[in-house]
Each structure stands twice: as C-alpha cells, then as structure tokens.
C-alpha cells in the first residue's frame, strides 16, 4: 500500500463521519481531534472503518498511532501487506 | 304626599302630567324619543288620586303606561325625560326607556312591558311585609286587559288566600290596545271577578280626582289595618291612541269626544273656577310653572350623556361578589 493509497482510504472513511471536512486543509502532523470535531465514538468508528477497508487490524496498543494523519499513514503502509 | 292636599294641588298634579305627556308626543315625532310610548292623557285623575292616598314607605308597581304614576309618585321629571332620551342621567340609566322607569328611593318597582307581569311581583312585595309584620301597602296598577291573564287570577287568589296587604288598582279604559272590554271578557263587571276571591271591590269614577282620592284613601286605610287585599276598578278613558303608531280603528271619534266632555283636568278646573277657589291668574300661573318645569326637564334630557359602551355588562350581576 502506497502512502497516497493509505491517505485516500483514511479520508474516505472520515468523509462518512465528518462530511464537512476538506482533506486539503488537514495538517498531517497535528493531533486530529484538535483539528476536527470528533468525539471518542467518532474516533473509534473511524478506526474501525479504516481497519475494515484496509484489512489492517489495529490492536489496542497501537491506537495512539492514529492521533495524526502522518502516524496513521505510516502505520498502514507498514502493516498493510 | 298624603298630607291633605288642596284641590289646587290635585289640579296642578294632573295638569303637570297632561303637559308632560303632550310634550312627549311632540318629542317622539321629532325622533328624540324612540321605541314604544304609551300616553296617560285622560287618565290623570287615577294616578293623582291613588298616589295621594299612599305613604312614602308604601310600594308601587306600574305598567308601561306609567308616566303619570311616576310623576305623581314624585320621581323627578328630568330623570324621566332623560330616561326616554336613553341618557345615562335617566332614572334607569337610559336602559329602560318609557316602559321601564325605576326608583328605589320612591319604592317605585317599575313599569312592566308584560301585561299582568307586575301582579305576582306585587304579591311578593306584600308577602315580605306580611312575613315581617310591617303595615306597608303595595299598590299595583294594571289595565282591564290584564284581567284576562292567568297571572291576574293566580295573584288575586294568592293575595286573598294569604291575606296580603295589596291594593289592586284596575285602570279600566275600555280598550285593551285594540280590543274592547266586551270583546275580551265574558264577565265585564270586573269587581265581580275580584269578589269571587273574597276581595272587597268597588267601582270608582276614574275621571273624578276627588272620587278617586276618597275611594283610594278608604281602601288603603283598610288594607293597612290588615283588611287583606282590596280591588278598585277605576272607570276611565285614554284620549290618545294606545301607543304612538295606532290609527285607532277600533273606536269612533264620537266616542272619544263624548269622554272628552269629562276631561278630568278641564272638568276639575271649571269646578274650582265656579266655586271661586281658582282665579284665572292662578290658572295661568299654574300653566306657566308647569311649562317651565317641563322645559327644564327637556333641557336636562338634551344635555344628558350616553352611558359608556364599556359599562354595558354592569349590573348583569351584582358588583362586589356575593356579599
């Protein structure tokens, strides 16, 4: 999986949860929850969506990797075989 | 009121009613007075005679032909005229009009537009006096037409049965609106009707103010002394139509002229002039004073005000709740 593919699937899932978010305005290295109005349920639903679409299981200990877009992309690229 | 009144006082009272009623006819035709108007011209002797026999504390219940009774009972002519103008200053705040003059201070319990309507009410006033052991008298006026109403018989019987202090004054002017007496009553001797209830009854010449006064005085005295109800039938005649819109097809002009020969005002004036107790000057002075009084009443009515629409619902019920 290339970083672009990872980024696309991340934002595709996000679109269902927060349709008003414009991907180009999101700062990849900044904590996502401070940029977008996501509560803990939205955040979990987002990760479940990513896991289902990319097939990457996200164990509990890796959840913190998904605080930023960059972290999420790196994790997916690394774990998506 | 009942202080012995001189003949000149009686004449003056009758003249006052006569001129007042003539002025009402004039004002009606000028559209100042509306609705129904029943004039008392010709019957003045009855009201003046009977009222003279009553005391201030006695009660009076009249009919829609009541201006004479109201004036003779002492209600202010201005308040009566204002009432017919429909003004707030009228004796019923302009709400009653010619047929419903009221004055609590004079215990004048009003005219009544329902023929015979006042009879049970009068019996009730007397019942109250009876229950409280007071010697007040209630005089109730009604025409010979009322004799056909159930309420007349029910009231006569109740008053007689319970021995109540009521003076029944029947003003028999021979025509109940458009129906002559003999065409409405099988028994035209009305005193016999009263006698059938064991009520003392006399016929009286209603055109002679002295005769009326004497009969009324005797009857009131007997009633006040606990003699139970009495019935007086005053034979009289109204010189004008039943009311303001009546071509009088039911009686001839000749009959009216015959009765006019016995005009209570004219006959009594001539008699007093003949026996020297009334000079021409005194008569003209009396005429002037009466006219001034009536002019004053008309002026009072003209200057009267309309009751504000906002007060329309006042007195539907008592104010200040059920005290």
């Amino acid at each position, binding site marked *: 999986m290339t970083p672009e593919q990872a980024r696309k699937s991340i934002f595709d899932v996000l679109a269902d949860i927060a349709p008003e978010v414009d991907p180009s305005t999101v700062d990849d290295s900044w904590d996502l929850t401070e940029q977008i109005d996501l509560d803990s*349920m939205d955040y979990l639903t987002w990760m479940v969506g990513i896991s289902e679409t990319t097939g990457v299981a996200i164990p*509990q200990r890796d959840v913190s990797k998904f605080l930023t877009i960059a972290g999420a992309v790196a994790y997916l690229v690394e774990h998506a075989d | 009121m009942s202080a012995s009144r001189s003949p000149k006082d009686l004449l003056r009272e009758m003249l006052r009613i006569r001129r007042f009623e003539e002025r009402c006819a004039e004002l009606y035709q000028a559209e100042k007075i509306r609705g129904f108007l029943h004039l008392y011209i010709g019957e003045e002797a009855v009201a003046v005679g009977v009222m003279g026999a009553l005391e201030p504390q006695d009660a009076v219940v009249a009919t829609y032909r009541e201006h004479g009774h109201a004036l003779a009972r002492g209600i202010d002519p201005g308040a009566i005229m204002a009432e017919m103008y429909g003004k707030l200053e009228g004796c019923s705040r302009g709400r009653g009009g010619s047929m419903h003059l009221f004055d609590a201070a004079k215990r004048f319990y009003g005219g009544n537009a329902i023929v015979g309507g006042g009879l049970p009410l009068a019996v009730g006033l007397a019942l109250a006096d009876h229950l409280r052991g007071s010697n007040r008298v209630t005089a109730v006026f009604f025409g010979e037409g009322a004799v056909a109403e159930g309420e007349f018989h029910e009231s006569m019987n109740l008053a007689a049965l319970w021995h109540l202090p009521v003076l029944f004054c029947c003003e028999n002017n021979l025509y109940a609106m458009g129906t002559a007496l003999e065409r409405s009553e099988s028994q035209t001797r009305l005193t016999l009707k009263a006698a059938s209830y064991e009520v003392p009854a006399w016929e009286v010449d209603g055109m002679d103010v002295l005769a009326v006064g004497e009969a009324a005085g005797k009857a009131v005295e007997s009633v006040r002394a606990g003699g139970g109800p009495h019935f007086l039938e005053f034979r009289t005649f109204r010189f004008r139509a039943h009311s*303001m819109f009546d*071509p009088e097809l039911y009686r001839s002009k000749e009959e009216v002229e015959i009765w006019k020969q016995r005009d209570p005002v004219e006959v009594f004036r001539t008699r007093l002039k003949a026996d020297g107790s009334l000079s021409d000057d005194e008569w003209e002075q009396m005429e002037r004073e009466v006219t001034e009084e009536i002019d004053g009443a008309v002026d009072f009515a003209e200057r009267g005000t309309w009751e504000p629409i906002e007060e329309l619902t006042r007195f539907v019920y008592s104010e200040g709740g059920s005290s």
Partner: protein
Amino acid sequence: MIDFLLPSLGADMDDAMLVEWLVKPGDAVARGQVIAEVETDKGVIEVECWHTGVIEELLVQPGLEKLPVGTPLARIRSHDDEPASTPTTPAGPTTRTVLTPPVHHDEPTPPVRHLAHQLGVDLTEAIGTGEGGRITRDDVHRLAVSASVTPTAPLPGDRLRTKASPRARRLAGERGVDLGTVAATGPAGMVTASDVEALAMEAGETADRGVAMRQAIARSMSRSNREIPHYYLATRIDLHLAMLWLEGENEERPIAKRILPAALLLKATALAVRQTPELNGHWIDDAFRPAGAVHLGVAISIRGGGLVAPAIHDADRLDLEETMDSLRDLVSRARSWKLRSSEMSDPTITVTSLGDRGVEIAFPLIIPPQVAMVGFGKIADAPVAADGSAVVHPVVNATLAADHRVSDGHRGGIFLTALDRLLQEPESL
C-alpha cells in the same frame, strides 16, 4: 319662521304620504291642533302641529308620493315673528322656548360608534351620508370594506386541504412538515399530531429540521430553567482500576468490538440509579411519577449544532458490549435523523459526557419532564492520595443535576457514592 316637518309617528315608520291638509295659508293654528292627515302602513293618522302661529305656506301637495320622515311640509309664522300685531288669543301658554329642530350633529350614535370600534374603522375623518352628515351604520360597513384589511397570512401547511387535526396542522407549521407527505393514522383517516412528530424525526430537509430542533431545545431548556429547582452535586471518581481493566479487555478485542470508557460510565450510571429511584422518572401534573425501567438518555451532539438525547432502553440490563452496540447505533441514527419518536419521548434519566471536548466539570440542565441528569467531564490523569502518598491516576468528575421537588442532596450523594463504588469493580458492570 318655523318649518313644520313630517313627524315620526312610530318606531318602525320611515315614510308616509300626505293625504289631506286641514288648514290653508293664513289660518291660525294652536299648539296640538290637527292640521293634516297622512297615510302610513298602519292606516291614516292625524298629524298635530306643536307650534302656535299662522300657516305661512304649504310646501307639499297631498296624494303625490311617500315622503321620508323629517320632510318639510309647511312653514308657520310664529308669534314672535309678527310685527306688533294684536296677539291672537293662543290656547296654549304665551311664552315657550321654541324647540330647536332635531339636532343632527354629526356625532354618530353610540351603536354606530360601537360597530366602528368592532370593525376597527377610524371615524375621525369619515363623512356620513345620514341626516346633516351623520355617520350611519352603512357608512361604517362601507369604510370597513374599503379599508380592506390585508387578508390574514395563509395557514401554514399544504395548499391541498389534507384532512389533519388542528394540532397536527399547527405542529406541521412549526416543524416545516408538508402535511401531504404524512401517513395518517388518526380517526377517519385524519393526520394527527403524533403522525407529524414521527415524520419530523425521520425525514424532512436538514435546514428545517435544524430550525425545528433548535426551537424544541429552546422550549425544553427554558421550561427546565423556569420550572425545575435544580441542585448540583459533583464528585471526583478514581478510574485507575476501571481503565486498567478496560485496557486489558480491549487487548484481546478486535477494533470493531472495542469498548469505550463511555460504555462503562453509562452502565454504572444505569445500575447506580436503581438504588435511588427518585432520580429516575418524570414530573407530570405537579406530581413525580417514578419510572419502572431505566431508559438511559444519551446526549448526542449533531454535526453543525444541535443536540438530541435518545434513550438506551433498559440500560441497566445490558452488558457492556450491548451497551456499546446500542450507543454506536444511537449515535449513527441520531446523526442521520433516523430516530424513532418512542426513543425520543421516554428516557427516564439522561447522561451527558463532555470529556471529549476537554471539559472538566459539566453543570447540565435537566431535560423536562425528567428529574435528574448526570454529567461526566474528561478522563485525565491527576494526583490522587493512595495510602498516604500521592500517585497519578486517571480520574473523572461526575456531576448530578437533580430536581429538588423530588429528591434532596442526601439522596443525590447516595447515588454518586454508588456510582463511584460500581466503577471500582469494572468487571461487575
């Protein structure tokens, strides 16, 4: 000189026809003398003259046509007009105030004024068509029509006259719902208010829904503020054991089955409230109605503003996973407007958790007709005393807002203590 007018001879007489004069110019007349006869609907009636004087001129010939009341019929020279002529012997008294002709000033009669008042017609500049410019009833009606008050705004709701109850019609207007689209379940196929409410929840454009929802929130919150005497209690709960247990639980669970701390808080609240029933129910008709079951309302914010608090039914009987599932389901349906009216109308107590927004302590308003509301702040690490020394544990501030008409602080305290104790045994939730 006096005008002798056709007199009004009866309340319902408007006109009459002159039949015969009984006098001619030059004749002397006395007050009260009959000088003519007129034909009315009731027959011929004699007409009297109320002035004393001499007939100057007859203005109307008999037998022509009906004349309205008030028409001048003749002119009479009265005494004071005559030059020093020998006074005729008047039958009536000599000095009299001559009655001024009926004054038809333009002052409208009270009934006409009353009618104008009713029809909202301003009479000040109105010109009457009656006698002497007097304003008549017809004038008032004419003025009312010409003023043509703008027709009232058309009723809300559809043009096609769907059969709907007035209450349904009003609600549809408020919620911007097209009555035509509502499935009617009322008597005789009529749309009822509950039909409209159901539809308003499920469908309808966002914009209108947003407005309607805001109105609903406004009404509910202002009623809460107006009617409910709130008291507030807060307590800080140590979540160390709970979070530790949760971490372990989530280790073996796939992402889709993970359990959020919120589920723990909801389940603990549902169980705790069973011990203080006076926090779980409704205030209706000035009386508290305890609820049999615990339907836990969950405050869910809607993207772009707005809030709904649908209920998790029988929240005290669900396990954590079921709690998590129903929470997830509610949130997704709430955000896509697919909530059922039953879920909306019967939570017995509501929880609001604002931790995600970084809030430490919440002071919520109770949602009428409920009688209590629990608020949770964010879960954050803080120094905590543990057997004499300070340690850092995750803690959360739990607030109880309760209706003082129903419960007192003492009972509120018992609830918060129970909540705290339950969260110390996460495995039992």
